[in-house]
């Protein structure tokens, strides 16, 4: 039983990290129509920004904010410089996916050329261990869960109660119709890249914190887990991604406790493939 509870705790933390990443990814896809596979590369790039600050003596939680900004700037630039020109030219969605894979190589290995192939860690304290209801978590893990809850609430508030959120949903549903209704879709798209880029930066940093050590290509595998959560919830569905993240996070960690931990991601992949085969529109979440 304690094994189960321990893995449940890990599952919640993984789900928290995954939720931030998956919600950012799915909103990015919904509004901008780019299946941006370079998302993982931007995550790790942002994590390194926090790392460099951390090395210079800045607290990692402060670094997290800067990483969010870095993710936002990088994502906006990625769109302005690469994706938007391809989209304006009328390139097929699949061309953009290939371009985003190319950008993944450029960003990840460009970064690796700078930082080298070895893994690094933040200098930080894990804080005292907290026990609650049989769960054993470090303070840092609790903070990550709390942060994720706050981010989810903020996303919910944004989508439901703000004009920007409405404009984003309208743009996601039908960009040309939204434009004809007077929504400045170009600006909505740019703001979306900034917001989801910030989520991407936060996700990269908390992933790095949670994993303990990370390198330039650490997000490769995690990107696939993000995709699993996104597709489980239905591509483009923010609430679906949240639910997908929770399910995938728990499933990977709990299965890791009972089978070979090396296979824990295989569970996520299996879920993704089954979802794609059976319900290409996603299983969870009807609207977002």
């Amino acid at each position, binding site marked *: 039983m304690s094994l189960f509870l321990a893995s449940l705790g890990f599952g919640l933390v993984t789900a928290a990290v995954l939720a931030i990443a998956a919600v950012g990814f799915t909103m990015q896809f919904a509004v901008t129509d780019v299946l941006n596979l370079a998302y993982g590369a931007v995550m790790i790039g942002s994590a390194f920004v926090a790392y460099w600050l951390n090395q210079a003596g800045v607290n990692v939680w402060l670094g997290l904010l800067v990483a969010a900004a870095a993710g936002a700037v990088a994502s906006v630039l990625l769109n302005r410089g690469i994706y938007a020109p391809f989209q304006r030219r009328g390139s097929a969605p699949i061309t953009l996916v290939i371009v985003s894979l190319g950008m993944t190589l*450029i960003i990840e290995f460009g970064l690796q050329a700078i930082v080298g192939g070895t893994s690094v860690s933040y200098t930080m304290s894990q804080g005292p261990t907290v026990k609650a209801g049989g769960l054993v978590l470090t303070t840092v893990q609790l903070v990550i869960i709390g942060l994720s809850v706050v981010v989810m609430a903020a996303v919910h508030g944004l989508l439901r109660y703000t004009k920007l959120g409405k404009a984003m949903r309208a743009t996601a549903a039908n960009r040309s119709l939204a434009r004809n209704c007077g929504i400045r879709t170009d600006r909505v798209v740019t703001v979306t890249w900034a917001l989801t880029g910030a989520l991407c930066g936060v996700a990269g940093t908390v992933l790095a914190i949670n994993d303990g050590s990370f390198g330039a290509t650490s997000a490769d595998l995690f990107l696939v887990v993000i995709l699993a959560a996104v*597709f489980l919830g239905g591509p483009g569905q923010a609430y679906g991604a949240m639910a997908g993240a929770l399910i995938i996070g728990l499933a990977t960690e709990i299965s890791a406790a009972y089978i070979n931990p090396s296979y824990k*991601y295989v569970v996520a992949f299996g879920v993704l493939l089954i979802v794609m085969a059976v319900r*290409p529109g996603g299983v969870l979440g009807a609207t977002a």
Partner: protein
Amino acid sequence: MTSAQLFYVINLLVYAGVDIIACLGLSQQFGVAGITNFGFIIFQAAGAYTAAILSLPSQGANGGFQSYIGGWNLPWPIPWIGAMIVGGLVALPFTFLVGRRLRGDFAAVGLLVTAVMANLLVTNYRPALNGSAGLSLVPAPLQGEYNPQSQGYQWLYAAVTLVLAAAVYWLVRRVTESPYGRSLRAMRDNDVVADSLGKNLLSLRTAMLVLGGALAGLSGAILVGFITLWAPSAWGYAETIVLFAAVIIGGAGNHRGAVLGAILVPVAFEEATRYIPSIPGKPGLVDDLQWVAIGLLIVLFLWFRPQGVLPERRRRTAVGRPRSVMPNEDVVTLAGTGPEPRRSVAVRSVPAPALPDGGPLLRTVDLTRNFGGVHAVAGVSIEVRRGTLTGLIGPNGAGKSTLLAMLAGTLPVTSGRVIYAGSDVTTLPAYRRARIGLVRTFQLASEFKRLTVMENLLSAVPRHRGDTLAGALRGRRYWRGDEEAAIDRARALLDRFGLSGYADTYAGDLSGGQRRLTEIMRALMAEPAMLLLDEPMAGVHPRLARQIGAQLLGLCAEGITILMVEHELAIMDEFCDPVIVMAEGSVLATGTMAALRARSEVVEAYLVG
């Protein structure tokens, strides 16, 4: 040359052959059939592992330091043949991803994920394929009889590899330069439209996945026979990206481009960078920059030269050459001898089964389609009588296009029935409806852009002997007769619609009106008994619109039944009888335009809606 240099040259030749075979397989999937297989490397890996475990002795007899299944110690060429078979079979489970249901980019992501997962599984599971360490000491082919270290053997190995590469080139050319290949390219350009013209997408995609998989498997077998080891690090998902870079740079859809790309990227580029000295204190820097360069090459080529170094060739249909003017007995001469003789050779249609009472060719019973909570079409029951040009009008959002899509099978119905020629076709997929003569066109431009006008027309020909994989493999001689007949029919249609001068123009380069005509001609090539036209005159010059209308009336006189969605009331007045009026998902009225104009609710629906 020293023997080391010679060995290096042989090495390069073998690698080139292996990469050429792999790139040809990928080009066939990606460039010709439009399947973005991000998991391509899995198939090469499957072939390599298969060849390895077929040719290795049992694990006990091999020193016991590695564990693997199989170990049958089989002589060449059985391991290579086995590799091709397994490479092809591995493709079968993937067909559910690239079937009709999933968007192309989603399927690509699914395949990428599968590649990562497969690598992870093999890396971590040692008993089957020796895990991350991989298999080593794989016997070279016929190493019992010959000495694999001898130069003669190595030259022979390179020669066999290159001969196989040439054979593969010949094979994929034969498939692609056939009516079957034309169907593949049509599917690549627009799969929904290809489906509506009678192409079985699932079967086409499955065949290409299996063919590409078998070729990838062969390339893996050749490679493992030469380097004698194979491990998960050799087939990371990123290796697929290298092959994609090769195909994109060389020219997707052009097999010579795939060969060039294979030589340029995985061989020349990776070998050239090997000589860059590593910078002290920066291990792996050159490797990293090499990946960056691959990424840059992909992005830059897709931007500046998306067609690649060697673009896909335009297929011309021997314009200048004298063609046989022998009347083909297959072509039914319709419409007799009017004042314009060129109209006479025209449309061959599926003889619609004679109905005893001359009843409707198509009817629906309570047809309904919901999108979420919206009733786009709500309980529509209509009849379309044989030989009529029936109009379907209604304000925006009335459900006309949705109705048409359900009739053609492009969109599944929520409830209700579609009865065509007396039989219930409600659950019949679109391509099967097209094959029994129920053919649609689309509201949005739907030409196959990278096919010429002539190819667009030919792509729709049903029951073409060359339009199966087996027929394509049997060669031109087998299907030339059908092709010539089809070309004659297409020429007659081009004459009739005044587009003879555009036969060899890419459909993507036509004007809006010409595209409309091309689409109608293409639908006619499918030998329809009934045409479902979705705004065939939208965005067309009024004069051309009236010409199209006249042509459609001519088709009806020849026995074809037409249901046409149209916005322009003047067109309806002139050509359509009867006319069905829809509003808010339901049928409002049916009758002649004159009668409808007298009914206030119809006028109101138009004015208010």
